[in-house]
């Protein structure tokens, strides 16, 4: 017969060798290794103040015949501490979900039971397939002033614990953050950034249950955020950006009437439009371009060429020149 034996960390454990008498000659082994006789009292195995590393298979063999007389799996663990329970509605008015976890591991299997009561009515919390420590409930009533009471009980072989949450329908409403946040410069506007986003896809009916939004933005070089609250629409133009500075932007959402703000969205970065650097030549620049023959580089006379993507590094200069004038200069210098 194989058994499982659960014991608390720090406990003293006594294992009997099945039905063998106390004075029978036996040998105890764990995970294929003999256990020293000093841990035996007669045929009993004594383990003092067990720790987690002592979990494993323990076997007892009759002294002379080496017949296996008893086997047990020792699982050292802890009774559960008070579980952490959270309930939230990110899909109002459809329903809400509750999720839970233990603050510290028990190292042995735990079983969770959740009960949800609304007034006198018991409701079923349907377990999610993933993640496993979560279940969801559909609202049967809306606009109720009666509170919901959710009790989570966790049980294992060494004990049990529970926690209860009581809340009303609106207190737990918290949308997911807005999605697809995009920030773009506005052409010819060095102080503007156009930001747009979408309602979180988990919010089922934004038309009947509209969301409002909170936008925050700052240049990377500063710590202070600017904030704007927007009661409708899913776009906004920032008009006071510092020219040429890269910005970080985030958006949060909240139901117009109830609940709390979502977490901040994923941050996006954008830099306002900057004017192209004008006609700019240096001797160094002219020297760099001598290797190209003038015949192989003949832009149309009226074209302005500007290497917009040029990285400004030490010594390099972004070039933007009117073709006719510079070619004439080349002709003078290098023919």
């Amino acid at each position, binding site marked *: 017969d194989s058994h499982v034996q659960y014991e608390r960390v720090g406990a003293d454990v006594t294992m009997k060798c099945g039905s063998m008498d106390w004075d029978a000659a036996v040998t105890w082994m764990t995970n294929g290794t003999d256990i020293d006789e000093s841990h035996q009292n007669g045929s009993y195995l004594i383990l003092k103040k067990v720790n987690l590393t002592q979990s494993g298979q323990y076997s007892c063999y009759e002294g002379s015949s080496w017949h296996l007389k008893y086997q047990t799996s020792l699982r050292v663990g802890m009774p559960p501490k008070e579980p952490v329970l959270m309930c939230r509605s990110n899909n109002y008015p459809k329903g809400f979900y509750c999720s839970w976890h233990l603050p510290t591991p028990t190292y042995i299997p735990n079983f969770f039971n959740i009960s949800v009561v609304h007034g006198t009515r018991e409701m079923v919390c349907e377990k999610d397939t993933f993640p496993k420590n979560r279940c969801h409930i559909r609202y049967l009533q809306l606009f109720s*002033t009666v509170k919901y009471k959710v009790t989570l009980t966790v049980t294992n072989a060494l004990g049990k614990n529970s926690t209860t949450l009581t809340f009303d329908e609106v207190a737990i409403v918290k949308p997911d953050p807005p999605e697809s946040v995009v920030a773009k410069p506005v052409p010819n506007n060095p102080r503007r950034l156009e930001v747009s986003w979408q309602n979180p896809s988990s919010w089922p009916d934004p038309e009947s249950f509209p969301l409002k939004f909170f936008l925050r933005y700052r240049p990377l070089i500063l710590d202070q955020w600017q904030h704007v609250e927007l009661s409708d629409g899913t776009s906004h133009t920032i008009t006071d950006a510092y020219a040429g500075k890269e910005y970080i932007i985030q958006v949060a959402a909240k139901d117009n009437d109830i609940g709390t703000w979502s977490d901040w969205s994923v941050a996006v970065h954008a830099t306002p439009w900057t004017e192209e650097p004008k006609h700019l030549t240096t001797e160094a620049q002219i020297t760099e371009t001598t290797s190209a023959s003038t015949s192989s580089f003949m832009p149309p006379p009226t074209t302005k060429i500007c290497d917009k993507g040029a990285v400004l590094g030490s010594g390099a200069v972004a070039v933007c020149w009117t073709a006719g004038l510079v070619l004439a200069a080349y002709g003078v210098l290098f023919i």
Partner: protein
Amino acid sequence: MAAADSPSATLRRRDLCSRGIRLAGKMRSDVIDLLDTYVERQGLDASASVAVVEGVPAAAVEHWDEQSGTQRLLENLAAYRTFRTLLAQMLEEQREQLGEADAGLGRALAAVLLQVSAFAYHLEELLRLESRGAPSEEEAGPPQPLHLGLFERKLRGLGVLRELAQWAVRSARDLRQLAKPSLGSSSALSTAESP
């Protein structure tokens, strides 16, 4: 119901709904402020649980999303007419109980009563637009006497205001449903006729 579906009627409905939503929002905000004042002045615990109060229209509803526009309007109107009576009663009791000692609470109650009356009238307008007409009010006699002690009356008042705050949220949602272009209140006449 052809008139209710005309473009001008649709625009008028949408306009009334928008204004109604704003009214409901303001009313809710004022009721929440009133709740704080009421709890403080009446010496109550803000987290006190109040059992279902008889005679107070409960905002809670099942299958809310399946209601027709007319049903929404009728339920809202019945509720606000009842709140009008309940608030008038509370105002009277408050004056008897505290007299001039708490004119602030009295003024706040009166202000909310005014908004409730205005909102009820607004709902009547919407019903008229639906060519339904507002149902006549049940006899507007004196409210039935409540044989409650002082503390029970205070708790009842708390229940009234909490439920009213919830109704204000529901009303805004109801009006948004009503304002949706695909759902005219002329569709699917409710079988729930006026009381």
